Structure formats: C-alpha cells, structure tokens
C-alpha cells in the first residue's frame, strides 16, 4: 500500500519531443505528489508538485497531470531538451500528520534527450 510504481524505467526522446513519465499509487491517504529531477552525482531537486484537489499543474515546460480516480499521475516535459537528460523520480507523501512525513519514491526514470 505504500508503493509508488513508476514507468518507464528508461526513455529516449528526440529534442523538441514530449517526454511522458507515469506513476501509480495505491494508498489514497497520499496527499502530496512531487517530482524530482536528479543529475548524476547530485541530490534530487524538486521540480514540480501537485495536490489531489487539482487535476493539472503547469510550470514552464513541465506539467503534472493527476487522475485521482485512477490513482495515477504523470509528468509531461514539453519541447524536451538535451539538458533535461536526467533521472526523474515521482514521489508521494502521507499528509501533514506530523508523524508520517516521509516521501515514498518511485523507482526512477532515466530520460535521455537526443539531438
């Protein structure tokens, strides 16, 4: 129930294309869904996040789509650039309970954007 399933494991997209990464969860108590971007040798950096009362959130070229009924959310990277090549992690958080504030991460998607 605590798992977050992420797909695909790896993705190759041409420059200018759309990169799509999907995540699914089971626990309906999750109420915050961030995406992190990680470059080799660096810590994950918060990219964009959404709460379940919103179906879509857009920040620049990055969009999260959220489907509460299907318990799925996805990251879309529009006009993908070689600089977007990184590993992307989705995550989910069990509310602001004060006692369970840990992120559960997906297994990561390695994105390569080719010229």
């Amino acid at each position, binding site marked *: 129930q605590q798992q977050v399933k992420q797909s695909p494991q790896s993705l190759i997209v041409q420059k200018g294309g759309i990169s799509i990464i999907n995540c699914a969860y089971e626990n309906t108590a999750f109420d915050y869904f961030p995406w992190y971007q990680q470059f080799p040798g660096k810590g994950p950096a918060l990219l964009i996040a959404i709460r379940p009362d919103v179906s879509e959130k857009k920040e620049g070229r990055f969009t999260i789509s959220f489907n509460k009924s299907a318990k799925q959310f996805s990251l879309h990277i529009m006009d993908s650039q070689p600089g977007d090549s990184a590993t992307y*992690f989705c995550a989910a958080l069990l509310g602001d309970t004060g*006692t369970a504030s840990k992120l559960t991460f997906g297994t990561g998607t390695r994105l390569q954007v080719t010229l």
Partner: protein
Amino acid sequence: EAGVTQSPTHLIKTRGQQATLRCSPISGHTSVYWYQQALGLGLQFLLWYDEGEERNRGNFPPRFSGRQFPNYSSELNVNALELEDSALYLCASSLVRLAEQFFGPGTRLTVL
C-alpha cells in the same frame, strides 16, 4: 540562501567500522530527513527528525541511527558497516508540517 549541505562528500570505510555523516538544513528549516539511494534500489526513507526528536523511521536495522542538534543540523551514524551499506546517503530538510523537501548533494559511502 544556502541549500542543504552534507559532509563529507565521500567516505570510504571497511566492514565492521562505523560511519558518521553530517547534514546542515536550509536556514529556518526544522525537519531533517535521511534517505539511502543504493544502486538500482531507488531512494529509501531512513529517518525523520524534527525539533530534536526522531519522528519516523524507515525499514532499516537499529545500527542505522542519528540525532538532531539544537541548531537543527543532523548526524547519521551507521554502525557495524556491511558491504550492502554502500550507497549515496541523502539528507533533505523542510519547514515542519510543509511537504516540500529539499535535498543536499549526498554523501557517497563505500564499504570495502
């Protein structure tokens, strides 16, 4: 504003030794989280400290422990090191009761 800092960057130990990793959160953040990122295993939650107290713990043995100091910095201790403890250890911080966690660059621990 300075981000989360971690030291050392790299640490090499042998089996059975103890490792101590340190983390300084973003100024004003009171919560510190530790995660293990082992090759091929993604990010696994280790520990959460807030206001000097351990608030939550992941599925790791007791030889993984830590503490949070009055200035909110934190230390992760790993006793009786095993080969499989080799990983990138990441520290994150957040304002208490807010969801956004910001990560440091990590400490690469290698156990020989």
